[in-house]
């Protein structure tokens, strides 16, 4: 079975045998960059078609079904359309900021991909504060939204940006605390170590109730942080038309759109890594036979499977629930999620101190 880590190491060896170390590093950086952008584009296409299909089936519709087999090339066609569309900059807009904002959103989303462990021994950057890095960089995405909202010279955009700012800043807290529970259990911020600590069971199973609570809080908080319904107040179609990206069109809009989906992917990947064992296969206690079968499934499939399951859950939320109001949104965070997650982290600390986890 060919795994990602084998491909990576063979490429590395081949380059080392042909080039000087400095060139090897450069070539590898280029490869990683191209691979990241390719993954980006691919994820964007896949997630958009997935969202549309999920929405369609929940709404007793067929969804896109004309372009390609079962409409699977619809998002490609949409991308081409967006690429050739004119990107209009409104007359009163702050042109520099207006054009910069989508790129900030995109760059932030790209930076977040760095520490993810896509498969066994396959990670772009295994930095020792992986989780903290993700929390930190994801807080940058609010800047892009604020910039877009302010520079559009549109009142709807400004309102959307303000909402989004308040929302992301406050939901970062409970998302961070939910992540902290796993950090407490693992004793490390490094994503590879967190995955490794789940070799004998995923945290959601062996972390008892607190891990489950943390998982639920994490899913709710990241749904809010990525501006997805029912927390899509920054866009709030029926209230603010399209919120912060009302004035964007063409490729600049597509970048925002893509960044949103990549953010969803990243937070779901983080959730899968922290709570569902990352690329670790599913094992049940002493069932040797069953565990062996699970081991045969490649680690990348495990990782993407878990991530896409979480993405599906987030889409499921979107197509089921009505949108919250801004004050209720903040109520939910400050009156429910934050106290619960603070209480939860105390519970987790107790568990960690007495080594109640497996």
């Amino acid at each position, binding site marked *: 079975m060919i795994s990602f880590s084998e491909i990576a190491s063979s490429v590395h060896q081949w380059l080392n045998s042909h080039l000087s170390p400095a060139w090897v590093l450069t070539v590898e950086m280029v490869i990683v960059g191209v691979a990241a952008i390719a993954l980006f584009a691919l994820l964007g296409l896949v997630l958009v078609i997935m969202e549309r299909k999920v929405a369609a089936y929940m709404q007793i519709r067929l969804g896109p079904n004309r372009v390609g087999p079962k409409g699977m090339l619809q998002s490609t066609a949409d991308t081409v359309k967006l690429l050739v569309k004119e990107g209009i900059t409104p007359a009163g807009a702050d042109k520099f*900021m207006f054009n910069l904002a989508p790129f900030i959103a995109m760059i932030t989303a790209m930076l977040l991909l760095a520490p993810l462990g896509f498969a066994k021994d396959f990670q772009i950057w295994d930095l020792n504060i992986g989780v903290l890095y993700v929390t930190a960089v994801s807080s*940058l995405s609010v800047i892009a939204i604020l910039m877009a909202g302010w520079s559009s010279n549109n009142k709807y955009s400004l309102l959307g940006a303000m909402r989004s700012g308040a929302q992301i800043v406050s939901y970062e807290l409970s998302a961070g605390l939910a992540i902290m529970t796993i950090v407490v259990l693992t004793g490390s911020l490094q994503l590879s170590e967190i995955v490794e600590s789940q070799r004998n069971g995923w945290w959601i199973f062996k972390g008892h109730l607190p891990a489950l609570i943390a998982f639920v809080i994490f899913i709710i908080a990241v749904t809010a942080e990525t501006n997805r319904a029912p927390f899509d107040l920054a866009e709030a179609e029926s209230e603010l038309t399209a919120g912060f990206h009302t004035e964007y069109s063409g490729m600049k809009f597509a970048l925002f759109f893509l960044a949103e989906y990549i953010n969803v992917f990243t937070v779901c990947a983080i959730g899968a890594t922290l709570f569902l064992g990352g690329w670790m296969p599913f094992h049940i206690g002493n069932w040797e036979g069953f565990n062996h079968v699970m081991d045969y499934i490649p680690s990348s499939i495990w990782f993407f499977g878990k991530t896409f399951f979480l993405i599906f859950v987030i889409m499921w939320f979107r197509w089921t629930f009505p949108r919250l109001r801004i004050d209720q949104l903040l109520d939910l965070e400050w009156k429910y999620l934050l106290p619960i997650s603070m209480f939860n982290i105390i519970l987790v600390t107790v568990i960690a101190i007495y080594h109640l986890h497996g």
Partner: protein
Amino acid sequence: MNGSTIVFYLLGLMSIVSAVLSVTSRQIFRSAIYLLFTLIGIAGLYFWMDYQFIAAVQIVVYVGGIAVLIIFSIFLTQQSGEQLPEVPVSRAVAGAIAVMSGLALVLVLMDRYGFSGLSDPGPAPSVAAIGEKMLDINGYALPFEVVSILLLAAMVGCIVIAMRKKSQV
């Protein structure tokens, strides 16, 4: 000049240029954004030095927290769209003198200190080590707690100010 140095100079250039732009820009929102880039550049420098924890904290606190706070307050004062008034010559001159003297001071200090240069800066401290130092009685427990009291005082002050305003209206 190797790649690492190039990255260093790029980050330094980004910080300095956006710092200058932040001061000279006549639109307050743009100033805030440039300030943000300065802070990101500094965080980048920390990453460059492999002090990842400090870099992440820099982003969380300054970029994600303080810069957003500044942008919010700009939005709320409703002046964000307007051009700031032209700076009077006297003030510009005074500012330039202040900058120059500050720069001179820094340069003199650097010259005196000499920065002999460490041959091996040693490994970056792990997060666990930082945590232990912070909460150790022989470490930085006292300053850490004192700072948090300061923050608490600031928060209480904010609440008091906000409350009073509300009762007047």
